[in-house]
């Protein structure tokens, strides 16, 4: 080994350690930023190490790629609004997976003949996972951005078709594995993986996006780890595995928060089943309240809990809710925010939005912490959330979301629900909370309703 190679390996070891320390820093908001600086330093060291330690002969493509990527990356980092974070993240899963898949194809092009069986196996995994994550994430991003509808796209025999595609993909993989000279097998595996990624995500509704995002995160990481196996590169294995496991842990947490299994999310086709079930209506009437009465209730309450949902994000109402909360706090009201794990479209979505609006993180409460406090809460304000506060999940074993842990808003003394209209939520489920006698409804765009409420509170 030359001195350059030793240097390169040393930077890889350093990078691996720094990455792990960075994730350790993530355990608290106060240390998280420092941790990310370490990860950035590790990444920089590994890149420099690679450029020094490998025999680079052509710099053109490297410089072009690094500059173009940096420009796009920096532009995204600066301009992407916090409300678009789910789309951005889905897109970055696609980019990461595409990089892994392309490196795999490149390795196949230049080295297929000299690869052993193990390396070929790893290469197959890398390319399959990379390709299906690329197209799957692009579809997810398109759904989140609203380019294609958020409703599940389903047809008769969908699961059978998907199974066939998956079988064909795996057969091509096995064929390539046994006969590395069969170029067709490799490329049909690649093509089928791209198709399979699309098929995997189109039947999934928007409300299930937190699980899908986490799963795609996991696949993208595992694809990078497989790249590490192909190249015999430990830092790639470590970083990819950390990413893969992080995604896996998040998927499990999200599934738990919906009381569903991963298979059910992927193959269940949630939205359509409910439309057929034709829900017996919960009965009763929804009571509407006017702004001044609502403001009065809030202003004279002791404890108020805000419960944000995806509606807060679509209405971009995070600043408006913080302004209202501050007015109430000035009047001596205790204000807290209750965050359900699957509120929004990705894990932690609501926390980021509220943090953007300068809500201190000490005011954000997790479900387990806040649920015991609802009985002593005077007013719970539900902002564009629906299923996560649906008491049917707890009380009605026949409900399609039975067993899903909820924010027990219905135990508060009174509830004000901010809703765009009288329609049902994303899942199409009837929500008995809206018909309870302690509940009153405020219709309209969440952002303008909240700022009008703030004005009304000032007049009280």
């Amino acid at each position, binding site marked *: 080994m030359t001195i350059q190679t030793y240097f390169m390996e040393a930077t890889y070891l350093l990078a691996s350690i720094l990455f792990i320390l960075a994730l350790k820093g993530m355990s608290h908001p106060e240390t998280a930023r420092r941790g990310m600086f370490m*990860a950035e330093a590790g990444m920089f060291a590994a890149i420099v190490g*690679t450029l020094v330690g490998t025999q680079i002969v052509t710099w053109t493509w490297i410089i072009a790629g690094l500059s173009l990527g940096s420009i796009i*990356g920096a532009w995204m980092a600066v301009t992407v609004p916090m409300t678009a974070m789910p789309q951005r993240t889905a897109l970055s899963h696609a*980019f990461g997976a595409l990089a892994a898949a392309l490196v795999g194809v490149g390795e196949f092009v230049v080295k297929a003949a000299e690869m052993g069986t193990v390396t070929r196996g790893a290469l197959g995994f890398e390319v399959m996972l990379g390709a299906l994550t690329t197209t799957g994430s692009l579809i997810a991003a398109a759904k989140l951005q609203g380019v294609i509808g958020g409703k599940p796209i389903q047809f008769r025999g969908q699961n059978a078709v998907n199974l066939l595609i998956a079988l064909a993909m795996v057969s091509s993989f096995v064929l390539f594995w046994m006969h590395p000279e069969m170029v067709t097998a490799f490329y049909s595996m690649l093509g089928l993986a791209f198709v399979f990624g699309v098929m995997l995500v189109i039947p999934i509704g928007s409300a299930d996006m937190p699980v899908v995002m986490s799963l795609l995160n996991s696949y993208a990481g595992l694809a990078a780890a497989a790249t590490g196996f192909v190249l015999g590169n430990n830092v790639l294995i470590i970083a990819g595995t950390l990413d893969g*496991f992080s995604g896996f*842990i998040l998927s499990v947490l999200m599934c738990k928060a919906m009381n569903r299994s991963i298979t059910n999310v992927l193959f269940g086709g949630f939205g359509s089943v409910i439309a057929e079930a034709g829900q017996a209506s919960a009965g009763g009437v929804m009571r509407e309240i006017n702004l001044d009465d609502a403001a009065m209730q809030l202003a004279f309450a002791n404890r108020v809990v805000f419960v944000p949902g995806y509606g807060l994000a679509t209405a971009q109402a995070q600043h408006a809710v913080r302004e209202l909360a501050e007015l109430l706090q000035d009047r001596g009201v205790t204000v807290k925010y209750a965050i359900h794990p699957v509120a929004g479209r990705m894990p932690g979505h609501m*926390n980021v939005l509220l943090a953007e609006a300068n809500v201190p993180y000490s005011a954000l409460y997790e479900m387990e912490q806040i649920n015991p406090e609802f009985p002593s809460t005077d007013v719970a304000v539900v902002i564009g959330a629906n299923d996560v506060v649906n008491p049917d999940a707890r009380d009605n074993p026949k409900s399609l979301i039975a067993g899903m842990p909820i924010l027990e808003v219905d135990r508060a003394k009174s509830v004000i629900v901010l809703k765009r209209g009288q329609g049902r939520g994303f899942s199409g489920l009837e929500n008995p909370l809206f018909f309870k006698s302690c509940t009153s409804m405020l219709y309209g765009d969440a952002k303008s309703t909240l700022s009008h409420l703030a004005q009304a509170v000032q007049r009280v």
Partner: protein
Amino acid sequence: MNPAVLIASIYVFALAAFLGYQVISRVPPLLHTPLMSATNAISGISLIGSLVLAGAVHYPLFAHILGFVAVTTATVNVVGGFGITDRMLKMFGKRRPDATATAVHK
């Protein structure tokens, strides 16, 4: 890949998985979005594989082009991922709400 290297790689994979589980289970739900964005940026380390493909040895042009695209997308993830993660974490760093209400209503 010779068996010794393979076994070493599997050790690395298993230990990284175990360590990842331990470390990531301690991340509070509050930071799940930045976590996803951070691990994404970190797995942009596949950039180093792309660099080799884009510039090393005398590979055919097709391999260089694949490498170039991979370098680009991986760099987008590294630069964009770290940039956005930092932007998010900066917001969480604030201890108290800004009295001057810097809210931007777009």
